[in-house]
Every structure is written in structure tokens, then in C-alpha cells.
């Protein structure tokens, strides 16, 4: 799939799977880098317990490895994430090793959130959260969407919600 970073992808809600804009990759990497914590904490305790290596060395190394690994995985996942809006509903497809494809029928959408943090705003990106009345998948969220796409998605889904009032 070709991605033009300057102009947003023209959104004709076709059946084709759409990719996320590549300019959001560094934000995803930033989020993935949080993996440094689960690496750094055990490293600290192991270093303290075993006396094999000084915590002053072990913790930064482990944190760095964790951050790099997390960022790498997050960028890969970001590149592979696809979404689609067709007459059946909204779908998100993620991952390569751990694949998942989530499908929310339009008639089941309860309400929608479009969130924009300061970093996302600077990159003209948004996070779309689709809420259903379910339990485990009550909120399906997709971050790193182009802001215009997110608005259009929200409008499209919201008009559907107005049409068939669920309650």
C-alpha cells in the first residue's frame, strides 16, 4: 500500500483495507518504548540479588534493550495495522505473529470518541475509540489515524447510530 505523507489519503469508504499514515510511526515507537520498565525492574532486583553485575550497569542496559525492542515491535505493528469501514461495519486488523481482526457492526456502535493528545495534534493525528455495549471488547480503539480520516469515520459511524437507535 502506498502512503503519501503530505496529503491525507482520500477517504472513499471503500472495502479496501487502509493503512495508518507513516508519520505516526515515531509516536507508536514512543509508546512501545515503555517496555523499558518491565525490563529495568527485574534487572535491578536480579543485579541486587546475585552480585554478578552492578545495578548501575545492569539497569540502564536492560532499560535500553527494552526500549529498543518495544519501539521496534511497536513500529512493526503500526506498519501492519489496517482499518476498514464498509457497509458491514468498522474493522481493525493488527499484528503479524499475534494477529487479530476485530469487527464492530455499525448497528452495535453505542458512541464514539476522537481523542487528540498534544503530540498527536502536532502530527495531525487522532485516536478513534468505538464503544459498544459489550464487555471485553467494549471499546475498540485505533490510534495514529489521520485526523481528517478520524473525523470522517466518526461522522459516518455517528450518523448510522442516529439512524438506528439501539436503545
Amino acid at each position: 500500500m502506498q502512503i503519501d505523507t503530505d496529503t491525507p489519503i482520500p477517504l472513499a469508504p471503500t472495502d479496501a483495507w487502509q493503512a495508518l499514515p507513516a508519520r505516526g510511526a515515531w509516536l507508536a515507537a514512543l509508546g512501545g518504548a515503555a517496555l523499558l520498565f518491565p525490563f529495568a525492574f527485574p534487572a535491578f532486583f536480579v543485579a541486587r540479588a546475585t552480585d554478578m553485575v552492578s545495578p548501575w550497569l545492569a539497569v540502564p542496559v536492560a532499560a535500553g534493550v527494552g526500549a529498543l525492542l518495544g519501539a521496534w515491535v511497536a513500529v512493526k505493528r503500526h506498519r501492519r495495522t489496517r482499518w476498514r469501514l464498509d457497509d458491514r461495519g468498522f474493522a481493525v486488523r493488527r499484528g503479524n505473529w499475534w494477529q487479530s481482526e476485530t469487527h464492530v457492526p455499525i448497528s452495535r456502535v453505542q458512541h464514539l470518541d476522537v481523542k487528540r493528545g498534544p503530540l498527536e495534534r502536532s502530527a495531525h493525528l487522532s485516536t478513534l475509540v468505538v464503544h459498544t455495549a459489550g464487555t471485553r471488547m467494549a471499546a475498540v480503539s485505533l490510534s495514529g489515524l489521520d485526523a481528517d480520516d478520524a473525523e470522517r469515520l466518526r461522522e459516518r459511524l455517528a450518523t448510522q447510530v442516529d439512524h438506528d437507535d439501539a436503545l
Partner: protein
Amino acid sequence: MDGPVVDTDAPERRLHPWSWLFVLLQQLKQFIFPLIALLVFGARKSDDGDPWLAFAPVIGIAVLVVLAILQYFTYRYVIGRDGLTVREGLLHRSRREIPFSRIHNVVVHQSLLHRVFGVAEVRLESAGGQKPEAQMRVLGLRDALALEDLVRHQARGPAAIQAAASDEPSRARDATLLALSTAEVIRLGLISNRGMIVVAAGFGAAWQILPERMIEQFFRQGAKQAFGYAEQLHLGWLAGAAGVAALVVLALALVRALSVVLALLQFHGFRLSEDARRLMVERGLLARLRTSVARRRIQAWTLHEGVLHRWFGRRSLRIDTAVAEKAGQQDQRALKDLAPIATPEACDALVNHLLPQAAWPRADWRPVAASARWRLLLPTLTWLLPATALAAWHLGPWAWCALAWLPASAYAAHRQASRMGWSLDGHLVAVRSGWWSRYWRFAEIDKLQALRLSRSPLDHACGTASLWLDTAGASGVAAPLALRFVPEAEARDAFERLSLALAQRRLRW
């Protein structure tokens, strides 16, 4: 009750005159710990000569009484044609309109004290959210039942409302679907583990509330006394072991007895009945509870058969409803147990009666992939191997005997894999699983909220996939409605079929 209540200027109604007492009791329940703290610490301080602190609890209670009485005078409700209007508050006034069509569940609750005063608490619940739409604490019993009837018959037009409002002969028309005899409730107590849960919760609470040393000392002294007593008896090790075993059996028997008592308290006189569109449950020994739910509000069904169930030849049938449930709080009031205990035939008949298109019990179970046999064993392996290795490292090589658990769990996984199955048609999706403790979980396709097809690396290797189906009101502890270890082509096919079917149908709550 007065005649046709159709106009918006229908008379305003109030709660029962005794309602302030129950509001006060409820508030006291909430403030009981601060009040006790005030009493304890306030009394101690007052020795030093500060008399005000001694009065603090009295002042607190007086304020609560005034608030409770104020609530009685400010809480009013009007029964309109399509809904209920509730006005409350003195300074912060609120007016709430509750359309009848949004009420998913009506609960009429009568504790022992309520019964003494001839009143009842009414709760009107809608889907989702944390709080009930309206909580009426308390109404006279006649008013409460009339209101319940009204909500139940709301969709049948004003004529039915009149009939319901004028008197209550309509209740006689309800058909009983299931009634539990006392013997059956005792059986339910023997099967259920309520007693154990209560004992565990009691221990937890005691640990938190009482000072730490008190419990520790209690245990130490108890152990010392028991040990000393055993020493006195000069028992051999065989007799000692027998004594310990007897004690354990006694403890288990006591816990089961507690379970039976709890089951009797909760489920005595259980009666499930239906009228045209609603299901109703009435139960309880001391506190009576009437709760009802519209049949179309049922989101998913769970049929469960544990080992003890099997010994007694019984099963239980539970439902999920999308009714507000306080998070983390075990609220027993929602209608969840359709059949707390019943024979398999009765459960099947009940499902068939309430879901005629389900064709229950189903014959078209499709098996899962053969790889499930060893993949079900993996969770056990991941904890058993490290735990055993750690134990062997610390305690010596005898700990490797724990691996004898492995063949047993392999056998269990094998049996479970051959029992696992799923079934899908135009109306219903169902899964069954479990071998030792079995369950069947099913939902109407119209009630599905979202679908997820997922594949882990192991799924890639085995050519399988999992299809997770989400419904409203499913509790976190209940088994998920998921088609696991399904060959990928079948899972994709089911995913396509379901997403197509869902796109064509509207959500029916």
C-alpha cells in the same frame, strides 16, 4: 390506587411514611465505620476534658436523621403514561424522567425489617451504568407491587395499565416455569461453595479489621492447645493422622452446612414464572426478593454442570442481563439464576421454552482441531515445570514427584479437547467445554456486540484460529463465548457469516 393514570398531571406520590427510617438505616450502614471510630476515639479523648467529642456521634446521627426526614419530604414521583418522573432534593433539585421502555429490570426487595413494617424497596434498572435509574426506599407493599406490575405491562397499552393499576388479579395468570422444593434447595447448598466463600471473606475481613497480633495470637494459642492436648493423649502417628483427617472432614462438613443454610436463606421458595414478555423470580427465606427481566433482555446463557452437580444428577442455568451492576460488589439481586439447580431435562426444557428457535440440546456440535489436546496442557506446563524445579532446588529431589501431576492433567486435557465443540446457525452460536466441570455457553446472534478473530504463533503453526464473541453483561469470571482451536478456514467462514448476519440485523435489546 386511583383510576387511569394517563395524564402528565397525574397525582404526585410520595414514599411510604416510614421511609425515613430505612433511609437512615442505609446511611448508618455507610457511616458505621466513621461513627464507631468517633465513638472509640472520641470517648478516649473526652477523658482529657473535651466534652464536645463525646457528643460528636450523637450530633452526627441527628444530622443523618434530619437528612433522612428531608428526603422523605422532597422525594416525589409521578406515574405518567410512558414513564416515571422522579423529583428529589431540596437545595440541589433534580427531576428525572424514566421512560418505561428503558427499564430493563424491576427489583422488589423486602428484608425482614421491611416485612415487619409492610413495605418494600423498589429498584428500576436500565442497561449499563453504575447506578439504578431509580431507587425507591421504601414504598408500601401494595404500591410497590402495583408499580412493578405497571412496568411489566407498560407495552401492552393503557388498558393493561388500568387493569394493573386497579388491582392485581393479573398476577394469577403467570405460569410457573420452575419451583424449587426445600429438598432441592438443600441439594443446591450441598453443591454450591457459598460457605467456603463466606468463610474466606470472613477471614479476610477479620485480618483487616482486627489488630494483627490478635489473630496471630489466636492461631498460635489454638495450635499450642491442640498440640498439647494431642501430646497428652499419647497417640501413635496413625491415630494422629486419623485425628487430623477427622478434623479436616469436620471442618468441611461445617462449611457445607453453612452453604446449605445460606442457600436456604437465599433460595427458599424459589419460583420462576413468566407472563407474556417478562420472567420473574421470587425467592428468599427471611428477606423476600422479587425481580423480573424482560425475556428479550437476556444477553447470553450459561448451562453449568460441576462434579457435584453430576453426582446429584443436576445442572444450573444462568443468564447474563445488561443491567447496571455495581463494579466489584457482589450484588445478588439481579436476576441471574434462571435455574439455580434442576435436572438436565428440566434445564433443556427451560431453554427450549424460552428460546424456541435454539433447538436445544443441539446435535450439530463441531469438534475442535486435534492440536487442542496438547495445547490445553501448555498452561499447566508453564507453571508446573518452573515451580517443581524451584521446589527441587530448595527442598531436594523428592519434589520432582510433583511431576506425577502431569499425566493426570494430560488425561484431563485430552478428555476436555474431545468434549470441546461449537455450533453456529442462523439464530444461535454455542460453545461447550470442560470435562471435569462442564459448561455450555450460548447466545442469540442478535445479541452479539463485536467479533474478534485472533491467531497466536501457535495457531499459525497448527493452522487454527480463535473467534472471540462479545456480548453485553458478561461478567469477568464467566467463561468467555469463544470458539478456540478451530481450524482456520472454519473460523474465517464463521467470522464472515457472523459479520454478514450482524450487518443485516439491528440490535434487539
